């Protein structure tokens, strides 16, 4: 008997037999393992073909244990006497991708809230949970890892019950690792998650919740059909752009792509719309048919907006064309990545790149280095500032080098609503951190006896500067953080330049709060004094705001650089040493007459490690 879930015409799937759901979980709480177990128990991936984290396709995802791109899979499941189709839509798990998460949630009617029974709920999870509740999703609370000795299911069941307002006995208990409770969970999905509703006779409306570029097939978009029917017979039309494309293929993921004739109401699958890059088929957009267009889109579409900028430069200047090609290729698959060429006196030719956040930045950088074999220097990340001049002009600054010289009337910087979950013991330490990062306390709530939720408004610039590492170190790793954009605020910001022998080094300029300019200046100057080798002359290092010097260090002139002995047997060695030193000299970056080793730039720019989460 042909497995019915891969039947050539899925049109026969009655919406009442469909359940669309996602899993909301923190990193390491076992989401991918649970998904693996579901694939196995529903029989669509035989256990001998099973590999860990089956749905995480990128190497980086598997290594870091995070899901960057949403994946989805169609699972057949028999509950009682009835056959069902379960669509699991796996969501990305990081604050940088909260918009993608919201679109994945919009494609579901239910969500499994998966919480580690030894750790309790984390900020990220809570943020996504609130998002799911806002989207009217049915929440199925589940404690995972109940097989662990450290599991405290009673305690965390109470905590979850308190947060979502259910009875602690409603919280399911599973072990994704051993499989215990997973079959019951699938039955609960059938029982609790409402079937999709939609009008099969209305014009097609399908929500794009993910869009990926495949080198063989072009762009593949993952969709949830809301109304009507998606078939290869009709050209598809992207409602945000108004552009129509040929519908090359329609299918379902089970879990490998399997073509079908069409997708009907409530169904989740993929469509290949014959477009060249993902910006032509963006996450959140609504697909309709060109011939019989829906009058209104599903709504909720938003163009991704970069929040964090950084300059990326090849360490070897001749790699610049390779970097450009690599960025072009990554952009095919990443509609949120923006970049434009820029040049730095210190670092040469490179690109100013905009990212959704720090993780996005790191992923892009890592993929460039790994997949394209590029060695890169990245400048310290910065946010986007809006600067109003006394002339009434306004300048948007994505690079400290573009900071206007004219009289400034006010500067606006982006702020975020941040949520921090932490054990109550550390509240003082974290409040102290938020205070030094110019945070404003907005609320504090006890989730349980010893767990607290802190709400702060913080400048985004403070969060991208080492905040997460600080938070983790002050709470021994127990705090978790989530945040979302919350507009902008007027702040007293200045640009601090770093000068070597009177010459500004553009790569080291930074926009900082006035109260922190001095500490930034002194720390950068003393760092550089250690990193830059002594020259034949004294090199003053200054930190300055405009023409006002706020910190100064000196690299004393080198006084001795001569080989004491040079006789017959030393000459060959000496000449070879000279050749090597000349080669090293060529790799130096010249700032005026000062020779600065590449390593000094890399070290000076990387000591403020971007936050990892």
């Amino acid at each position, binding site marked *: 008997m042909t497995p019915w879930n891969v039947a050539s015409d899925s049109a026969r799937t009655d919406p009442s037999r469909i359940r669309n759901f996602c899993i909301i979980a923190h990193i390491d709480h076992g989401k991918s393992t649970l998904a693996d177990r579901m694939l196995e128990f529903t029989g669509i991936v035989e256990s001998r073909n099973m590999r860990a984290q089956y749905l995480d396709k990128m190497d980086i995802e598997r290594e870091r244990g995070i899901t960057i791109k949403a994946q989805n899979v169609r699972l057949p499941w028999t509950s009682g006497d009835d056959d069902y189709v379960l669509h699991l839509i796996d969501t990305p798990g990081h604050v940088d991708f909260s918009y993608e998460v919201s679109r994945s949630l919009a494609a579901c009617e239910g969500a499994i809230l998966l919480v580690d029974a030894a750790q309790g709920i984390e900020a990220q999870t809570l943020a996504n949970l609130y998002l799911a509740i806002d989207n009217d999703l049915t929440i199925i609370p589940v404690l995972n890892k109940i097989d662990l000795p450290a599991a405290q299911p009673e305690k965390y069941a109470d905590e979850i019950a308190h947060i979502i307002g259910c009875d602690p006995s409603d919280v399911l208990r599973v072990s994704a690792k051993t499989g215990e409770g997973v079959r019951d969970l699938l039955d609960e999905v059938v029982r609790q998650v409402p079937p999709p509703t939609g009008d099969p006779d209305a014009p097609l409306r399908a929500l794009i919740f993910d869009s990926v570029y495949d080198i063989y097939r072009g762009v593949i978009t993952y969709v949830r059909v809301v109304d009507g029917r998606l078939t290869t017979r009709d050209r598809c039309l992207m409602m945000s752009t108004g552009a129509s494309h040929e519908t090359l293929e329609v299918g379902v993921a089970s879990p490998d792509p399997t073509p079908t004739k069409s997708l009907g109401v409530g169904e989740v699958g993929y469509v290949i719309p014959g477009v060249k890059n993902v910006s032509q088929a963006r996450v959140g957009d609504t697909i309709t048919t060109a011939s019989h267009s829906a009058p209104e889109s599903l709504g909720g579409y938003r163009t991704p907006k970069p929040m964090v900028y950084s300059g990326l430069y090849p360490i070897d200047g001749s790699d610049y064309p390779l970097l450009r090609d690599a960025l072009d290729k990554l952009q095919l698959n990443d509609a949120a990545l923006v970049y434009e060429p820029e040049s730095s006196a210190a670092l040469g030719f490179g690109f100013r790149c905009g990212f959704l956040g720090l993780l996005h930045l790191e992923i892009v950088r890592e993929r460039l280095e790994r997949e394209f074999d590029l060695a890169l220097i990245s400048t310290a990340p910065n946010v986007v500032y809006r600067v109003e001049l006394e002339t009434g002009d306004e300048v948007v600054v994505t690079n400290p080098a573009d900071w206007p010289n004219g009289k400034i009337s006010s500067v606006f910087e982006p702020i975020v609503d941040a949520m921090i979950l932490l054990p109550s013991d550390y509240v003082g330490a974290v409040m102290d951190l938020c205070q030094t990062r110019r945070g404003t306390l907005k609320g504090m709530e006890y989730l349980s006896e010893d767990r607290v939720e802190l709400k702060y408004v913080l400048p985004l610039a403070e969060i991208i500067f080492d905040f997460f590492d600080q938070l983790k170190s002050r709470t021994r790793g127990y705090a978790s953080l989530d945040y979302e954009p919350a507009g902008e605020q007027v702040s007293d910001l200045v640009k601090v330049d770093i000068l070597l022998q009177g010459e500004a080094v553009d790569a080291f300029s930074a926009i900082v709060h006035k109260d922190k300019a001095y500490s930034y200046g002194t720390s950068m100057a003393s760092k550089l004094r250690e990193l830059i080798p002594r020259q*034949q002359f004294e090199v003053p290092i200054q930190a300055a705001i405009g023409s006002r010097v706020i910190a100064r260090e000196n690299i004393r002139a080198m006084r001795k*650089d001569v080989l004491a002995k040079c006789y017959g047997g030393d000459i060959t060695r000496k000449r070879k040493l000279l050749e090597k030193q000349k080669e090293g000299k060529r790799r130096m970056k010249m700032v005026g007459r000062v020779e600065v080793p590449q390593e000094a730039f890399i070290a000076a720019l990387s000591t403020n490690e971007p936050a990892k989460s």
Partner: protein
Amino acid sequence: MPSALPDGDPAPPTGELSAAALAGFEARQFGIYVHVPFCATRCGYCDFNTYTATELGGGASAASYADTAIAEVRLARHVLGLRRPVDTVFFGGGTPTLLPAADLTRVLAAVDREFGLSPDVEVTTEANPESVTPESLAALRAGGFTRISFGMQSAAPHVLATLDRQHTPGRAAAAVSEARAAGFDRISLDLIYGTPGESDEDWRRSLTAAIETGVDHVSAYSLIVEPGTRLAARVARGEIPMPEDDVLADRYLIAEALLTQAGFGWYEVSNWASGEADRARHNLLYWTGGDSWGVGPGAHSHVGGVRWWNVKHPREYAARLSAGVSPAAARETLTPAERRAEDILLRIRLQEGLPLDVLHPSGLVAAARARDDGLLEAAAHAAGRAVLTLRGRLLADAVVRDLVD
């Protein structure tokens, strides 16, 4: 010389040289260096090619060493093909004076026999103060040696101890007197500064002690901690701290001040002489690109733009020669650019400096900037030569990097 050999091209078993390398040989300055790879004990800072066992086996014993060296002198004559007077001969080591004076004079006689010695030949041997006697010195002088260079290193007992030197501070001065009594009027002392534990005052005392002996030549070297030496290991373990470069620079300035005051003049970065005639001509030959043949294990040679170096171990060295094969381990034929680079890096170390016209345009720009920075003498620059200032001498390698394009 440092013990690690460079990489190079294969050297032919005959040791033969191209016609291009030999062209003009008879008209160039020519010196012979004889390496004696034996020491009574190994000093902690030394990475030279030397051995403390006098019996290395396989025809490499100290007793048979002179004959082996003579075999290479004959090979040199065969390869160079020409009987022509030798301008300088230098016996270095190791400790040449660990061999009987008769052995050293026998090798010198072989050089005379094969090539002839020029009428004003300079024949130097290095010596440790404790390795000579009035008798051995007299024998050397009688055998044709004209100059002696003692490894005094320091007058401070604790510095000598750190360097593992065997002699007492007073011995160097006594050796100088003995040498003078034996008829040597050209005597040099080697000093080392920057030894861990040495103070500025220790260094001043060492210089004064050297000056008071009345020698005509002083070499002062900053201690180099070579990788692989016992001293390097002690520094790495943190047992003894190496002085900073600034301290070494100060010591150099002290040497320049005291030696100049005593009537010495610098003529190479690490060398001072009483008068022009007292300069070490053999070493000047290296710095001016002359031809030299290095006899002995690990010895380096240069003839007409070809540099080569012998196998390092005395046993292999002896075996090769007894088989009638050249002891050269490898060689390199310098390109014109390499010869130019060598010329610049060597000549800039000399008080005569280097003619500006050997520099390329970018080197000329660098030279003008070095003059403006006070690293090259302005007057000499105006007269068409690059001559290091006192500060420039301490930064000679940095200047070279700028001058060589």
